[in-house]
C-alpha cells in the first residue's frame, strides 16, 4: 500500500467512501493515540491538528487502510494543560494500548510526557515547536514542526545577505515570544550580528510606540519582532506611525493572512520566515513539496476553511508514523521507531524530512521560505 499515491488521490477517496462501506476488516486496527489542545488558549493549534488527523485517517480507512489494517484514532483534549497531558498519555499507553502517539500541541505538554513515553518505549511524534524536545535526542521522541531557532537562523541569514549587522530586538512576554527571543539572542553571534536593543511588551499591550521610540534612537539597521497574536500587528503599525524606515522582520508566529489584514498597509515590505504551505501555489512545479502542499490545502479547505501550518504539522506526523508502520509491516514498537528514524526525503507540509539517529526532526533551514509582504500578499524572496 503506497500512502503517497493515495494521499494525492484523496479528493477521489471521499467519493469512494460510500462504495467501500461494505469491506471486511481482516486484521486488528492500527491504534494511533493523540492528545491535543483542542480547547483553551492553545486551541488555534489543537483544533486544526485534530481535524487534520481525523480527516486523513477517515480517508485512509476508506481506501482499505494500511496493509489491509484499519487505522483507529484515540483522542484526548488536554485544554492546553500539561498536567492533563500526562494523565492522558498514561491512559493512551496503559489502557488504550496505542501503537504510536502523534500529538502534543504545546511544547509544555510535549516535554512533560516525554519521560513517560521514553519509559514505556512507544514511538512519539510531537507537534510542538521547542528545540528542547529533540535536543538532546531522546530515543523514542520525534517532532515535525520547525523550531524557533531555525526561524532566527533563517532571519539572520537573510540579514547577512542584505548587509545588516546591528539589530534591535522587540518581543512579547508570551511563551513563544520568550523562547524566540532567547534563540535570537543565542544565535546572533554566530551570524556576526549585534543586538543593540532588547525591548519587551505584554502579550495584550495595545501600544508599543514607547519601546519603538527608544529603538529609533539606537543605531540599529533593522528591527526583529519575535511575537505572536495581536502584538506583532501593533508593532508593525507603530513602526510606520513613528516614521521608522528600517527593514522590519517578523517571525513565523505571524504567518497567517490575519496578520496582513490587521496591520494593513503598514505590513508592506515586512519579511518573515514561514513554512511553504502559505505560498504553495507560488512554488516552482519541480518542488517536491508542491503536490503535497496543494493536496493538503485543497482537501482541508474543502472541509473546514483556511489551512494553518499547525494542521500541516499533524499531517506530517501522521504520515511519517503511518509510512514507518507500512515499511515495518508491523506495529512492533521498536521496529516502527527504527523506521521513523530512517525517514528520508519525505515531502511533508513543513519541508522535506530527513531524519537520522542524531536528528529527530529532520528539517533543514530550506524548510523555511523567506517571505516578503508585497501588495497585501506573500512573495517568496529569492
Amino acid at each position, binding site marked *: 500500500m503506497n500512502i503517497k499515491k493515495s494521499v494525492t488521490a484523496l479528493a477521489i477517496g471521499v467519493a469512494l467512501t460510500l462504495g467501500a462501506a461494505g469491506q471486511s476488516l481482516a486484521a486488528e486496527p492500527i491504534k494511533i493515540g493523540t492528545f491535543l489542545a483542542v480547547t483553551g488558549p492553545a486551541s488555534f493549534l489543537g483544533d486544526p491538528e485534530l481535524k487534520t488527523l481525523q480527516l486523513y485517517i477517515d480517508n485512509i480507512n476508506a481506501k482499505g487502510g494500511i496493509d489491509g489494517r484499519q487505522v483507529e484514532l484515540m483522542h484526548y483534549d488536554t485544554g492546553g494543560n500539561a498536567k492533563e497531558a500526562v494523565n492522558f498519555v498514561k491512559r493512551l499507553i496503559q489502557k488504550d494500548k496505542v501503537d504510536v502517539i502523534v500529538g502534543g500541541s504545546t511544547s509544555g505538554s510535549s516535554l512533560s510526557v516525554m519521560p513517560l513515553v521514553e519509559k514505556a518505549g512507544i514511538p512519539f511524534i510531537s507537534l510542538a515547536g521547542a528545540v528542547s524536545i529533540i535536543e538532546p535526542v531522546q530515543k523514542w521522541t520525534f517532532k515535525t514542526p520547525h523550531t524557533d531557532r531555525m526561524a532566527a537562523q533563517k532571519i539572520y541569514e537573510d540579514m547577512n545577505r542584505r548587509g545588516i549587522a546591528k539589530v534591535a530586538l522587540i518581543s512579547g512576554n508570551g511563551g513563544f515570544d520568550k523562547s524566540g527571543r532567547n534563540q535570537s539572542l543565542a544565535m546572533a553571534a554566530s551570524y556576526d550580528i549585534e543586538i543593540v536593543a532588547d*525591548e519587551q*511588551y505584554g502579550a495584550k499591550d495595545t*501600544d508599543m510606540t*514607547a*519601546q519603538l*521610540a527608544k529603538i529609533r534612537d539606537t543605531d540599529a539597521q533593522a528591527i526583529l519582532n519575535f511575537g505572536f497574536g495581536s502584538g506583532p500587528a501593533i508593532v508593525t503599525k507603530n513602526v*510606520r506611525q*513613528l516614521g521608522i524606515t528600517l527593514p522590519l522582520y517578523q517571525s513565523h508566529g505571524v504567518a497567517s493572512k*490575519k496578520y496582513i489584514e490587521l496591520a494593513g498597509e503598514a505590513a508592506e515590505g515586512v519579511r518573515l520566515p514561514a513554512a511553504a504551505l502559505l505560498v504553495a501555489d507560488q512554488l516552482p512545479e519541480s518542488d517536491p513539496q508542491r503536490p503535497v502542499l496543494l493536496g493538503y490545502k485543497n482537501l482541508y479547505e474543502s472541509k473546514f476553511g483556511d489551512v494553518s501550518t499547525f494542521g500541516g504539522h499533524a499531517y506530517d506526523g501522521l504520515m511519517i508514523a503511518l509510512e514507518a508502520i507500512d515499511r515495518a509491516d508491523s506495529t512492533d514498537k521498536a521496529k516502527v521507531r527504527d523506521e521513523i528514524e530512517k525517514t528520508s526525503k519525505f515531502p511533508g507540509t513543513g519541508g522535506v524530512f530527513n531524519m537520522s539517529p542524531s536528528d529527530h526532526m529532520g528539517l533543514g533551514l530550506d524548510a523555511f521560505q523567506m517571505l516578503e509582504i508585497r501588495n497585501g500578499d506573500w512573495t517568496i524572496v529569492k
Partner: protein
Amino acid sequence: MFDLILQFLLTGITVGSTYALVGLGFAIIYNSSDVVNFAQGEFVMIGGMSAVALSAGDAGLPLWAAALGAVLITTLVGMALQRFAIAPARGASVVTTIIITIGASIFLRGVALLVWGKDLFALPPFSGNTPIQIGNATVLPQSLWVMGGGVALVLGAQYFFNRTTLGKAILACSCNKTAAHLVGINVGVMLLLAYGIAAAIGAMAGILIAPITFTSYDTGVMLGLKGFSAAILGGMGNPMGAVAGGLLLGIIESLSAGLISSGYKDAIGFIILLLVLFFRPSGLFGKASVERV
C-alpha cells in the same frame, strides 16, 4: 531626549485614554449600586466586536450605522444582564453581586467565542491612518478620537449625574435604596438604566479603540483589568477620577517602558497603584467611604 519624552507622554495619553474610557463604565454602575461590575470589559468587547460584525463584508453597514447598532446591541446586553442575572439576586450582598458579574463576564466571553470565533479583528480608523507630527513625536488621528470621546463621555456623565433628575435618582439608589423607594423612585428601573448606560459607554469605548488595539473575544479581560485599576486609582464612583486614573496609569506605564525597562512596565504600574491605595485607600480623587453612608 525631549523628543523621546514627548513621544512617551503621547503614547501614555493614548493608552491612558483607553483605560479611562473603560474605567468610566465601572464608575457608573458603582455609583448606582456600589457594585463593581467585572463584566464591564466584556461590554467593551461586545461593542467592538458587534461593530466589526455589522460593518463587515460587502453587505455591511457604513461605519456610523454599525457603531450605532453596536451601541444598541451592547445596551440591550447590559440591560439583560441586570434583568436576568443581577435582579433575581435582589437582596444579595454586594460581594455576591460582584461574583455574579464575574460569572456573567465568563459567560459573555464564551458566547462571543461561539458567535465570532477566536480571531482578531480590526475596525478601519475613522479618519485615516496618517500620523500627526508633533515635533519629532507622532500620534494617530484615531488616538485623538479616543481622547475626544473620553472627554465628551466624562463631561456627559458628570452632567448627567449632577444636573439631571434621572441621574440624581440613580445616585439616590446607591445612597439608600429604601429611602429612594419611599420618595417615589423606581429602584428596579434605575438599576436597569444604570447597566444600560454603562454598557453603552463600554460599547462606545470599544468602538473608539478597536481601530488601534484590535478586538477579539478575550480583549475584555485585559481592558477590564486596566479599566478597573484606573477606576480605583482615581477613586471608585467618581467619573473624573476614573479618567484621571486611566491617564495616570497609561503615562506611568509608557514612561517606565521608555525610561526604565519595557519588561517591567506592568509591574511598575501595579506597584504605584498599590502604593496609592496604601496611602489613600479611596483613590486619588475618591471621598472617604464613610461619607457615603
